[in-house]
């Protein structure tokens, strides 16, 4: 199911990439495509962890999945860091990272949606809206943190401190921790979901202000 979902999103977008002239748009679309592919890969790895490592679903959600998912979403960023670091000095890299997070979340949202077919049309819409303003923003924010870390490291601001790989590690640790924190908050019944939605909206507003005021 996840493979079919991932392909259904990836193939039209890949065709779109070939049609688009603007290099920046192509760049962002490619990150989005990677995000949706990572969504499929994460579901496979998480599934293996559940069946082979013998961990519970709750342990997967609040401990292991954030480690796997943040790593997968950040793969193109790490590749650029190693292969073509000049791309990291462009501000679009932060947007691109957010795009990868959103692409990931799209596949994940669809898979949850398919699993909730017993719900009424209204309840389903409510469910999708809830996930869209909370989980999607969380995925975009966490990958965006890694992108922003690499962007700031690409300049000379942090040169005086050295230890650049440690800052990259910190960005990843922070992304995983925020993801895990979000997942554990959601488990706290009604209050948890309210906090999750509010944190999603606040994160989005902060991101919006940061991007707009620095243009």
């Amino acid at each position: 199911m996840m493979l079919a979902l991932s392909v259904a999103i990836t193939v039209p977008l890949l065709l779109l990439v070939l049609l688009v002239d603007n290099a920046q748009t192509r760049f962002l679309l490619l990150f989005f495509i990677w995000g949706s592919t990572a969504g499929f890969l994460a579901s496979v790895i998480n599934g293996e962890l559940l069946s082979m490592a013998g961990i519970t679903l709750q342990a997967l959600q609040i401990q292991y999945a954030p480690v796997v998912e943040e790593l997968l979403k950040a793969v193109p960023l790490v590749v650029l860091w190693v292969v073509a670091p000049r791309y990291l000095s462009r501000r679009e890299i932060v947007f691109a990272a957010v795009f990868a997070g959103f692409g990931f979340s799209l596949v994940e949202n669809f898979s949850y949606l398919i699993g909730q077919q017993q719900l009424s049309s209204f309840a389903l819409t409510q469910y999708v809206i809830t996930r869209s303003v909370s989980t999607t923003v969380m995925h975009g924010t966490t990958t965006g943190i890694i992108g922003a870390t690499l962007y700031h490291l690409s300049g000379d601001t942090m040169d005086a401190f050295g230890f650049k790989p440690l800052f990259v590690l910190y960005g990843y640790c922070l992304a995983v921790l925020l993801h895990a924190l979000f997942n554990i908050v959601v488990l706290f019944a009604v209050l948890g979901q309210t906090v999750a939605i509010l944190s999603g909206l606040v994160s989005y507003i902060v991101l919006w202000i940061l991007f707009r005021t620095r243009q």
Partner: protein
Amino acid sequence: MLLFAVAATATVLTESVMLYNYLGGQALLSEFGFDVHYFVMNSLLIASTALLGVAAYQSKNLLLFLGSGAVGSWTLAHIYWTLYVYLAGQPISYPSVAELGFQGFYVLMIPAVVFLQRRASADQPVWLVGAVVLLVGGVVGTNLMYGSTGILFGYSTVSATLVGTVLLFGLSLVVYTPYRLIGVAVSLFAAADGLYIVLAISSPVLSVPYVDPVWYLSATILTVGLIGCQREGLLE
């Protein structure tokens, strides 16, 4: 300073209550006592992060920014840890995903303390690099001796190296540089985390309420130290 005063008062009160209960043969803290304790701890950690963040934003000082990020990472990890205790009714097993946040403190503090050490002293103490190398050797040797394998070996080696490096550089800041308060804070922080790692290896599911005040007290000392040094122009 107000933040430090609140943290010091909370430390004295919490440790006194725990000592009283311990001598009376009771649990260190009641259920309500734990609620208050975690509330105070997380509030002080959040306040430290926020103060450092605001100071960093106003002064555009990267060291303050690193301090805020470091304490913030530890704070987020502790909030996660607290939520897990309330969700599952017991502390999370060591090592957990929270360790990424706890170690995030050291990942950012290593560049900061090395930078301060380099900046303050032309003559770097000879024992420092040797002590760090000995520490790494000691951790690997101990793990080999106890037959630790896999995740525990890897994790305890990495975390002990990070914590130990910050502890040694912190002590060096206390002895050889004008950044004494910062050195005291990071050394206390690292000593508490080192103790926790040692205890957690033998008993992976544990809480250490008697150590908790050291963390929030040293976070406030770090806040006071960094902001104080920045105001005196020592971080420019």
